[in-house]
Structure formats: C-alpha cells, structure tokens
C-alpha cells in the first residue's frame, strides 16, 4: 500500500515550488504578495513535516505574518502616493523568460546533484546537545541552543534587529495624520476580544519555550501583531514625545542580554556562562526582555518611520500616508 503521507509530502513540495514561481511571475503585485504569504504558510507546513515546529512557528509568525503585513503596507504606499511619470515596466521577451527558466532549472539540477551526494540524517550536534542539556538550564533543545550554547549568535541577531530599526528611523520620518479607518462595530468587538487573547497567546509561547516549541522570537512576533492592530486601527498613534520610551524599548532586550553576558564573568566565568543554579532564571529574564524588544521593534518596523514633525516642505509626501 502506498503511504499517503508520501503523496502529501510530494503534493506539498510541488505546491511550494509552484507558488514560488507564481509569486515571481504574476503580473499583479498584490496577487504576488498574497501568493507569497500562502507560500510562507506552506513552507511552514513543510517544516512541520520535517519535525521542526519551532521553525514553523517562527516562519509563520515572522517570516510570513509580519513580513506579509510589511509588504502590504509598502505596496499600499507605492500605490497611493501616485507617480505621474511612473516608468512602465518593459515587457519581458519570451526568449529571455525561457533563458531565465533554463538557468533556474540548471542551477536547481546542479545544486540538487550536490545535495543528493551528501549524507542525510548524517553527522550533527545531536549527541553533544543531548549531553549538555542537563546543564543548560532549560528542557527544550532549540531554546538551549539559542540562549545558551550559541547565545552569542542570538545576541547578534537581536543586534541586527536593532540596526534595522535605527536604519528605518533614519530613512523615514513623519507623523501619521490620516484619520482612523472606519472598520465598524464588528471590528471593535473583535478587537476587544482578540487583542487580550493575542497577548495571552504571545506570553504563553514565551513561557512554554523553555520546555516545548516556542520562545522569545515567536512570542515577540505574536505580541507584535497586537502592535500592528493598534497602529492600523489608530487605537495607538505614535507621537514625537514617545520616542524616548521607544528607544529604550528597542535596546532593552539587546542591552539586558549583553549585560547579563558580561556580568556573569564576575565569578571567574566566561562571558555567557550562566551559573548553573541561576541559569533558568537568567535565561527566562533575558527571554522576557528580548520578547518585549522584539514586539516593539517589529511593530516600529511596520510603522516604518521616526515619529517626528516634519518641516513644511517635506510634509506633502513624507507625512501623508498609511499606518
């Protein structure tokens, strides 16, 4: 009897590739973004099939959810701020398209040949991680890798996020003066019910991370969704006077993480070497603060500009638009 799960895997694989192609070739940019979001959800499903629920969570929440919202916001901006002399995209000749497809196919074949020759289920860190788990302070291997064994990488990852928000604030500035969108009473009921529920789910994901899939990044992304909804519905409008608090929130996670890493050297330890009896507390503390930073930063990346009053001249195009 044919294993139906293999058929499912094959169908899912074909669907992932087909959606990738479709999001590159569809003319309508909005359709391309929707297809991309569906592609992200399908990839997350595929990663579930590969027993990687943590990654599936992160991809669904950050790679697809937040990224999708960012893309939609940018598309909306590009479409509403009209350009008179917008350059028409040149039609791509058939020959070029075929050449591209051929190049793509060859590249895939070459890389796949190298992939097929590599050992699978092969060498890795399984045993090393299993050995060290008991002294890592947490029970979930992925969290142990992220916050203990390779904590330096994770610190630098939140540094990347910090660099992004600084760069974005530097690139764009302005206040949103558009009125709140009319979303109706059903929405208000939904917001009242959902916003607290999302906060609970985000916190739950953070808390469950020490023993099961979840953790700071997934929790932070879910909490960022609250920020997105607040910004979109204008329940919260960023003001210039909020900048100080926002800056502190952006650096909170990175700062605490780096400070703990240095402070533990007090007892003659290496940086990041958490004393065993406090490891769990310290990791939870770091994760909690990092979660706050991630949530605020992702929401700020969505808002996309430093909330500062613009001089008159630039106010015409810089200030007026969405979110």
């Amino acid at each position, binding site marked *: 009897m044919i294993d139906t799960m293999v058929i499912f895997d094959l169908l899912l694989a074909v669907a992932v590739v087909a959606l990738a192609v479709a999001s590159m070739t569809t003319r309508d940019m909005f359709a391309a973004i929707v297809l991309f979001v569906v592609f992200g959800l399908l990839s997350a499903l595929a990663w579930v099939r590969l027993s990687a629920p943590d990654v599936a969570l992160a991809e669904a929440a950050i790679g697809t959810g937040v990224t999708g919202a960012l893309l939609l916001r940018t598309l909306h901006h590009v479409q509403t701020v009209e350009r008179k002399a917008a350059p028409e995209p040149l039609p791509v000749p058939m020959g070029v398209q075929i050449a591209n497809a051929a190049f793509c196919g060859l590249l895939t074949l070459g890389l796949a040949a190298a992939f097929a020759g590599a050992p699978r289920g092969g060498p890795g860190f399984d045993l090393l991680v299993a050995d060290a788990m008991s002294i890592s302070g947490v029970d979930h291997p992925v969290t142990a890798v992220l916050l203990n064994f390779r904590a330096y990488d994770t610190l630098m990852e939140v540094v990347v996020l910090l660099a992004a928000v600084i760069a974005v604030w530097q690139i764009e500035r302005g206040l949103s003066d558009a009125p709140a969108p009319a979303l*109706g009473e*059903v*929405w208000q009921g*939904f917001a009242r*019910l*959902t916003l607290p529920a999302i906060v609970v789910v985000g916190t739950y994901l953070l808390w469950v991370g020490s023993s099961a899939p979840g953790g700071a990044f997934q929790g932070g992304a879910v909490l960022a969704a609250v920020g997105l909804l607040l910004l979109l519905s204008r329940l919260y409008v960023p003001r210039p006077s909020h900048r100080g608090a926002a800056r502190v929130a952006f650096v909170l996670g990175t700062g605490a993480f780096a400070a703990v890493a240095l402070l533990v050297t007090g007892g003659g330890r290496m940086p990041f070497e958490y004393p065993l009896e406090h490891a769990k507390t310290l990791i939870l503390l770091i994760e909690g603060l990092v979660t706050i930073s991630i949530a605020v930063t992702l929401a700020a990346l969505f808002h996309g500009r430093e909330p500062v009053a613009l001089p008159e001249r630039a106010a015409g195009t810089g200030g007026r638009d969405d979110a």
Partner: protein
Amino acid sequence: MTPLELIAGALIALGAVFFIAGTVGVLRFPDIFCRLHALTKADGLGLGLVALGVGLLAASPGAVVRIALVWFFVVVASATCSHLIARHALERARRERS
C-alpha cells in the same frame, strides 16, 4: 480500529467535504458576496468537524482545550474578516457607482 477512531475518522472526512464545498463555492459562485457565503461555511463547519474529530483522538485534556481554542479563534477571526471584506467590497462598489 476502535469505534472511537471510526467516529473521529468520519467527522474528519465530513469536515474535508465541507472544505471541498467551500473551494468549489469560492471558484464557481458569481460574485464576491456569494463566495464569502461559501467561504464562511467551509471555515466554520469544516474546521469545526475536523477539530471535533481530532479532539476525540487527542490523548490529553490539555490538547483538547487547545484544539477548542484554535477552533474558537478561527471562527471569530474568520467571521470578522469576512465581515470586513464584505464591507470593503460594498464600499468599493458604492464608490464606483457614484
């Protein structure tokens, strides 16, 4: 196969049928409001039946609670989103007419 598994399997299969119906509706119905109608049926009922089936098979009470929560979220979110999409489409239609 235990009777419980049989019942669960039947519920899940029935749920899948609703999803198929929803897809057909979204593809074939003439305008967006009809399509939304088909969509909400698939959402609410299809997922509800699948959730019920999986809930019967689930081992722990914790899992059952989470399955129920998932279903509840989807129903509320889907109802609101359908409403918002319908509002949006209606506004669009009005604006284009005027």
